[in-house]
């Protein structure tokens, strides 16, 4: 199994709370994850994940307002990744300060709880094989 090509800025931050497991879903010859992603704050430890919880889902990230735009918008993310985990990942990628807030919205209508798993959101609100999430530094839709 080939090693996943990790973003340099992510692997440097790992230390037990790293965001390994995210990979751009277009380009790159990623075939698998080198090691299971450590649980992000608030998410339960997964024991022996079933085959479908190992599969990744495609997320398309869209910036709202004057929030910086991610150079890579499409990501393959593990189903058990939480919204908080995704927020931390985007903040690191955009080089935002820890104290800066970031809000994530589904369907441009609601902000899911930080401990929500992206897999569940994909099941319920995904379309055309992906989950579209809008992110914003301020509260866009309440």
């Amino acid at each position: 199994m080939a090693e996943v090509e990790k973003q340099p800025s992510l692997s440097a931050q790992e230390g037990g709370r790293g965001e390994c497991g995210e990979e751009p879903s277009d380009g790159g010859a990623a075939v698998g994850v080198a090691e299971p992603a450590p649980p992000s704050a608030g998410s339960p430890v997964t024991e022996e994940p079933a085959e479908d919880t190992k599969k990744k889902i495609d997320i398309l990230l869209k910036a709202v307002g004057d929030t910086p735009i991610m150079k890579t918008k499409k990501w393959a993310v593990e189903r058990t990744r939480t919204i908080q985990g995704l927020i931390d990942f985007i903040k690191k990628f955009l080089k935002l300060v820890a104290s800066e807030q970031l809000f994530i919205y589904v369907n441009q209508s609601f902000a899911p709880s930080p401990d929500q798993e992206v897999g569940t959101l994909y099941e319920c609100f995904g379309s055309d094989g992906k989950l579209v999430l809008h992110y914003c530094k301020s509260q866009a839709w309440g």
Partner: protein
Amino acid sequence: MTDDKDVLRDVWFGRIPTCFTLYQDEITEREAEPYYLLLPRISYLTLVTDKVKKHFQKVMRQDDFTEIWFEYEGTPLKWHYPIGLLFDLHASNTALPWNITVHFKNFPEKDLLHCPSKDVIEAHFMACVKEADALKHKSQVINEMQKKDHKQLWMGLQNDKFDQFWAINRKLMECPPEDSGFRYIPFRLYQVTTERPFIQKLFRPVAADGQLNTLGDLLKEVCPAAVTPEDGEKKNQVMIHGIEPMLETPVQWLSEHMSYPDNFLHISIIPQPTD
């Protein structure tokens, strides 16, 4: 025959007798007496425990006031889950009162979200209401409402005002005359025995042939392990608001009458008690 509307009141006014005890390792200046309170099933721990906090802070040192958190038999209780769900899931087959331990130190970051203010509870509650309507009505009903209507839902919950709440919530429980149900049913299925937080999937209240889908149909589709086999022994209880609805109950009816104020059906799958 009980009117369906009576069910709404029974759900709203459900209470759980609870005894709050301060964790033994918390440092106090005097002995901390336990505090007894009737908790509303439909509300959230951090919304209804101001008196609990004040009671225990009276016996603690002034500078020890960090964020309060609650635990039952070693399990941190998620404040963002409705109280009734927490009780059904963790303690429904134990003797009353529900014994909850109060902590002020060593906040379990991995298990609990922080709750610095009531605004956080309101934001969480409204997000759930919006998510539910996204499933029921493609967000059309919630989006047509004014900000003051959203506020009224929250204020109704916060102040335990059934009529104030339902004046607005009834609109979220309606569907267009041409439809026999919501688009999808907002539900979450919880089990303590799995590591997954909950199961939430798309599920239609009406089948392709026009028949109303039942609670049993829902379970068969999203959690077949919870369904008792034909000649098998009943291993689980399927509980909502402390009762086991008949599996023949249409989910559309359950959604309209037994949802929590956040418009979700929070369903607990717990082991069948052996005695």
